[in-house]
Each structure stands twice: as structure tokens, then as C-alpha cells.
């Protein structure tokens, strides 16, 4: 054990915890009696029917194998592969998120450059920011009138705030010295913005983007449960209505995995723009 690196030991421990956790889960589910062992009375009262209990991990794994081996099948509106469902969710998240970034980053830049604008917009931002994005849903459905666009709007509205606030904060906090370097080199406003302020504020801006994508992925599940039709959130709710808990657990895990992938993509971006002073 002494030769193993810190990472190897941690990985070993993780695998161990996973195995122990799965075994405990498996053991905690009471086995269903086989039909032959039932008494006449039990059979008549329906005790032998497969009960909708929490499925053991072995079933979930079997489900995962089944789903992941054919993720893109499409057998009608209520029966699509997990890949298609996740694809819909990612499409909505990215559309709403990119629209939010297109608004929040330039706007945050302007707010950050001007103390007056910063103070003037602050009360609006502070009131709008804590609103649960789903609270916008009825209004969005009424005004936009389209459930698909409403879901994207909800993503837009929830991901705009961290990006806006972090961009403004990052831009306002750019060191005076660096701005003075730009000034003494006679850089114009646009050039200063792109060659000095943007790289200086980039770590803060990307942190905001990372928070936003996390929130957007949290919100899409709830939004899709409301609007229905497609998406991973709808899939979870639909499988609950079907009382297919195996699929519910499997899709919960998939939500976690996709969320982690989205976050680590921004983690990579963050590492690229971070600088040491």
C-alpha cells in the first residue's frame, strides 16, 4: 500500500465505497417469494403480484445496460431512448444558456465599466435574481405561448444572473495598474476591453458561467416535468407515472453524470483562463 500514490489510494477507496454501498442496497431489498412458494390464500389475495418496490442495484444496472446499448431508439412519443431525452435537455439548456451569455457578458461588461450603471442596475438585479426560475413559467407560457420556448426562456432567466453579476464584478475589479498600462500604450477603448480587461476579468467571468451552467442543468429537469413532451425531466416524471422505478433511478444517475460532464467542461475552460499574479 505504501507504494500507491495519493490519487491511487483515493480511487481504491472510492471503488470500495461503491461496492459496499451497492451490496448494502442489494441486501436491503427483500426478495420476492417465488410463485410456487405461495399459499393458495396468498395467490388469491394477489400477494404474488410483482410489487412496485424500490429496485435493487442489479436491476438498475441491467436497465442501464439495456438503455445505454440503444440510447437513440424512437418508438413513439412516450417511448424514446435515453440519449434522445438527454439530447433534448442539453439542446434546451445550451440554447437558453447561450442566449443568456450573449446578453449577460456584454451587459455585465458595460455595468462593470461604469460605477453609475452598476449602482443603478443593482436593485433590479437584486430583486430579480432570487426569483425561482420556475415562477416565471406561467408568465412565460402566457406571453410566449409555446411550451418549448418557455422552457428555454426559463433556462435563459436562471442562467443570466450569475454570469451578469460575475462579469460586472470581474470587470469592475480589474487592477487600475493594468488599465494604466493600456492607457500609457494609447490603446483604444475596444482594444483595451479585449486585450486587457477581458483577459483580466476572464477567471471571474468563467466562474460565473460555470455557476450558471450548473443552475441551468438543475432547472431543466423541473422545467421539463412541467412542460412535458421530451427531455430527461419529462422522462423521469413519465417513468414515475409508469411506476418504473428502475428507470427513475437510472435517469437520476444520468442527470448526475451529464451535470458533472457539463461542469468539468467549464472547469477545463476555467483552468485555461486562470492566471497567477
Amino acid at each position, binding site marked *: 500500500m505504501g507504494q500507491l500514490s495519493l490519487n491511487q489510494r483515493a480511487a481504491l477507496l472510492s471503488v470500495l465505497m461503491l461496492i459496499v454501498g451497492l451490496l448494502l442496497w442489494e441486501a436491503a431489498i427483500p426478495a420476492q417469494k417465488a410463485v410456487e412458494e405461495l399459499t393458495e390464500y396468498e395467490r388469491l389475495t394477489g400477494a404474488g403480484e410483482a410489487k412496485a418496490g424500490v429496485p435493487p442495484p442489479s436491476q438498475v444496472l441491467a436497465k442501464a445496460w439495456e438503455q445505454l446499448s440503444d440510447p437513440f431508439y424512437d418508438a413513439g412519443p412516450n417511448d424514446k431512448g435515453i440519449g434522445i431525452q438527454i439530447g433534448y435537455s442539453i439542446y434546451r439548456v445550451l440554447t437558453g444558456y447561450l442566449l443568456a451569455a450573449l446578453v449577460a457578458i456584454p451587459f455585465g461588461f458595460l455595468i462593470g465599466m461604469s460605477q453609475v450603471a452598476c449602482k443603478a442596475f443593482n436593485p433590479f438585479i437584486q430583486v430579480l435574481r432570487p426569483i425561482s426560475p420556475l415562477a416565471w413559467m406561467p408568465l412565460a407560457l402566457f406571453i410566449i405561448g409555446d411550451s418549448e420556448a418557455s422552457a428555454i426562456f426559463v433556462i435563459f432567466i436562471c442562467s443570466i444572473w450569475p454570469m451578469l453579476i460575475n462579469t460586472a464584478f470581474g470587470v469592475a475589479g480589474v487592477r487600475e495598474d493594468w488599465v494604466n498600462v493600456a492607457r*500609457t500604450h494609447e490603446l483604444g477603448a475596444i482594444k483595451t476591453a479585449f486585450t486587457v480587461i477581458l483577459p483580466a476579468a476572464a477567471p471571474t467571468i468563467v466562474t460565473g458561467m460555470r455557476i450558471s451552467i450548473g443552475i441551468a442543468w438543475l432547472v431543466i429537469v423541473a422545467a421539463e416535468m412541467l412542460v412535458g413532451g421530451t427531455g430527461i425531466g419529462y422522462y423521469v416524471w413519465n417513468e414515475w407515472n409508469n411506476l418504473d422505478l428502475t428507470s427513475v433511478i437510472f435517469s437520476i444517475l444520468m442527470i448526475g453524470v451529464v451535470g458533472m460532464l457539463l461542469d468539468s467542461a467549464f472547469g477545463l475552460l476555467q483552468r485555461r483562463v486562470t*492566471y497567477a*499574479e
Partner: protein
Amino acid sequence: MKPYLSIEKLTQRFPDGAGGELTVFEDASFGVEKGEFVVILGHSGCGKSTIMNILAGLAEPTSGVVVMDGQAVRGPSLDRGVVFQNYSLLPWLTTLKNVTFGVAARYPDWSKAKVIDHATEFLAMVGLEGDVIHRKPSQLSGGMRQRVSIARAFANHPKLLLLDEPFGALDALTRGTIQDELLKIWGQMEQTVFMITHDIDEAILLADRILLMTNGPQARVAESVEITIPRPRNRTEIVEHPNYYAIRNHLVQFLGKRSKELAGQPTIAGETNRPETVRIDKTEPQDDPEDTQPALVAVNS
């Protein structure tokens, strides 16, 4: 004939927070000749940095003008390069790119290769060569960072180079080495330099002339002391020069005593308020060779 750089009746007042005004300095007037190395010495709070920022165009004086090469200074310009105390390198760029960034701004018509060659040449002049120039500033020592900053400033051939306590954050040994580098590069370039420092020995080593400021508020440039030690100078040899300690004592006396005594004297209206020129030279033939006092020749210009 006006000097190359002429500071005329510069006054800076700030609100003092109690409804009144605080005069940092008043009617400061002095000149700097082309190719001259002028150092300004004074206690904290006398407004040295404010004068520097006005010369750089980063701050506006309450009144007065700065004329350089026949043109009034207005706003920052590539004609006036600045080396800041805290180096002010852009931490996300490599050493080389920190210099090419400045060169490309100065010479927008140059090809990329020419910009890189020019920047590399100036980095080599301050002793930065090889792999070092591809490192980020965070991977460099304080002394190396300030070298980059000096290379960036010299590479742009500014008409006036402003050094704002460039060695203030460095340890004494590093400071010595970089002072030598600065002297070497300055000797090759005939660059006009205006520098702030707290360090008397540094001032004597580098300067052609030292401007002495009285304590603030209402500070003024009281004296202009010529450094009558021939160049090229060398830190170990100048201390042997007969003028060295005479000049040094004069500066110490001024900063220790007279800067306080002269402080806060309101300027007389109509006076030009130019600093008194002080020339201390013990190598010149003197009327009374027995006189142990430094020869003080005060000329009111």
C-alpha cells in the same frame, strides 16, 4: 529657450474631506533637458507620485501646464513611457508578449517578426534571454519582473521615460544589479528619464540632477542639485569621488532638516518659484582650500 520638458506652475489641490481644500503642491516649476536623467527626492506625501502621474497624463493638475518638445501634455501617450513600482506586467501574457504588446502598440506597421526581434533584443539588454522570456511574470522573481518592465519601456523609445520608484519593492542586492542594468541601457539610448526614489545613494548613482521637494502639504520643488560626478559611474568607484559625500551630506541634511523647515511656506504671487540650483564640486579650484564646508554655489535662475 525653453527646456525639452517644461513644468510650469503646476498646482494640485484635493478636497480635504472637511469641506476645504488640501494643496499638495503649488506652482511647481522646473525643466528637464533632452537626454537628461533627473531624479526627484522627497518624503512621502509631498506629491512626487502626483507629479509623476501628471507627467504620464494619468492625472490632471488643478492648474499649470506640462510642455514637452513644444507640445502641451494632455492625457497618456506612447511618447511618455512609464515603469511603475509594482511592475504592472500583464500576468496572463508571457514575458516576451508583455514587451511585444508595447512594441506593437508603438509601431503598428511593423511585421510580427520585427516586433518579436525588437522585443527580444531589449529583453537581452536587461539580461533576459533564452527560455526565461517565455515564462509568465508569476514565474519570475521581483527583480526579473522589473527588468521586463524596464525593457518594455525602453523598447518603445519614448521621448520621456518616467520611473515611479522602480526599485522600491526590491531587496538591496537585486536593486544594485538592476540599477547597473538601467545605467547601461540608459547609456546606450540617450533616453530622457524622470525618476522618483526614496533612496539617496540610488539618486546620486543615476542622476544628472536631483530635484528636492519640501514636505507636503503645500510642497514645492526647493532645490535642484547637480551631480558633479563624471560618467560612466560605477557604484564602487563613485563613493571614492571627492564630491560624493559632499553631495550626499547636502541631500541628507535637506531631507532630514530643511525639507521640514521650508515646508508649508506659501508661494509669493508673481514669483517664478523655480528651484534654486545647487552645485557642489570639490574638484574645482577653490578660493579657500582650507574650507572644509562643501562649496555651495547657489544660483537663482
